[in-house]
């Protein structure tokens, strides 16, 4: 199963041109959906206003070189390793889902456009789907916001779930379809179980890529921009209007805030993680 390209058998029923056209259509839907999402939520407008406000608060200007360094840091931290997550479980689940999705999409395109017929690509396709399932089901059953914070049942579906549900069903149906095909349950043209799961796979895949405007799919495009803006605001001293990050061993800070050395000494110790030492889990 893992070494077989599941799309090979589909070619008998659906021509390669149509398959490639479908992939291009999905890419267009993502692009259009993202633009509509930006227009609807006015996120680009807000982003520009926020940047303008941060620039006014800036205490110094950040040079091009420093901005390039910040961009590298954003790629290394926020994009590649999801460092903005405070919750480790959420971070691991997010990375499994993210890398699973990238592997899955990239290997699908590679197989359908015939760039490679290696068993390695089929392996990556299955690995991506498995990673998506692992990270996604972990998120769905244990981490999802309402479930953790408000004691809502895991099976209650809302509009906010379009993304994760269509993502999970896409990966799950893809794996079942591939398994049925490799176990000899029949080709797509046989109209059996294999066909059913292929149809379900295409249906959930279409939902995933066509509902960008209503789902959080577009976050993968604007999240890096927001992370970059946040880091620039920190570097130029604007710091999103937050208080300054004081050095508690600085005599000037002691002189300005005498309560601090009075209660904590001149070199305050590390006070530990405090209430963040354990995740809140009241339900």
């Amino acid at each position: 199963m893992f070494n077989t390209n599941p799309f090979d058998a589909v070619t008998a029923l659906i021509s390669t041109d149509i398959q490639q056209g479908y992939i291009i259509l999905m890419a267009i839907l993502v692009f259009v959906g993202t633009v509509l999402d930006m227009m609807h939520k006015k996120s680009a407008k807000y982003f520009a206003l926020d940047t303008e406000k941060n620039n006014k608060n800036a205490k110094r200007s950040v040079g091009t070189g420093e901005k390039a360094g910040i961009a590298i840091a954003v790629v290394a931290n926020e994009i590649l390793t999801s460092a903005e997550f405070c919750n480790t479980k959420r971070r691991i689940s997010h990375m499994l889902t993210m890398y699973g999705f990238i592997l899955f999409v990239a290997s699908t395109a590679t197989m359908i456009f015939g760039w490679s017929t290696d068993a390695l690509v089929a392996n990556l396709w299955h690995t991506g789907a498995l990673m998506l399932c692992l990270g996604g089901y972990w998120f769905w059953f244990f981490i999802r916001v309402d479930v953790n914070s408000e004691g809502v049942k895991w099976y209650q579906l809302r509009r906010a779930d379009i993304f994760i549900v269509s993502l999970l069903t896409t990966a799950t149906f893809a794996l079942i379809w591939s398994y049925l095909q490799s176990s000899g349950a029949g080709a797509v043209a046989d109209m059996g179980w294999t066909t059913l799961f292929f149809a379900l796979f295409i249906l959930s895949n279409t939902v995933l890529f066509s509902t960008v405007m209503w789902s959080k799919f577009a976050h993968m495009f604007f999240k890096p921009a927001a992370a970059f803006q946040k880091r620039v605001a920190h570097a130029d001293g604007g710091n999103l209007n937050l208080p300054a990050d004081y050095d508690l061993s600085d005599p000037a800070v002691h002189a300005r805030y005498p309560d601090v050395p009075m209660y904590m000494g001149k070199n305050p110790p590390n006070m530990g993680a405090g209430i963040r030492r354990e995740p809140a889990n009241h339900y």
Partner: protein
Amino acid sequence: MPTFVYMTRCDGCGQCVDICPSDIMHIDKTLRRAYNIEPNMCWECYSCVKACPHHAIDVRGYADFAPLGHSVRVHRDEEKGTIAWRIKFRNGKKDFDLLAPITTKPWGTCIPQLANEAAPADSMRDTQLLYNEPKYVAMNDNALMTLESNGLEIKEGVYY
């Protein structure tokens, strides 16, 4: 000064929902972002403001406190043991920075060693007073102030 949430900074982690003693921080069902469902009922404890890991929660001021409109931003640094407040007026000219210790002992160093305490005797268990309470409550000529000594008895509901 009730709290409100910047939707773009919130990631719906639910820390504020867990910590809010008034149970008015909730997650929006559609957007999966936190919001204060009842600002009028906010106790203004600012637990949510301090706990928010993304600084997504801000404070809405009353006109007498902030006549020009303002922003109040809070940063609670637990590792340093400090809490810093920044109040900035809308005209950008008035800008206060406040810094205060939130604890004088590192976390985990002041856990009561209850296991080392002697177990309470039956007479202590049967009393209407709580553990250690006689030391701290007002005594009336060494007589305990109880419902009985005041001619009262427990009724259903809250009467006294």
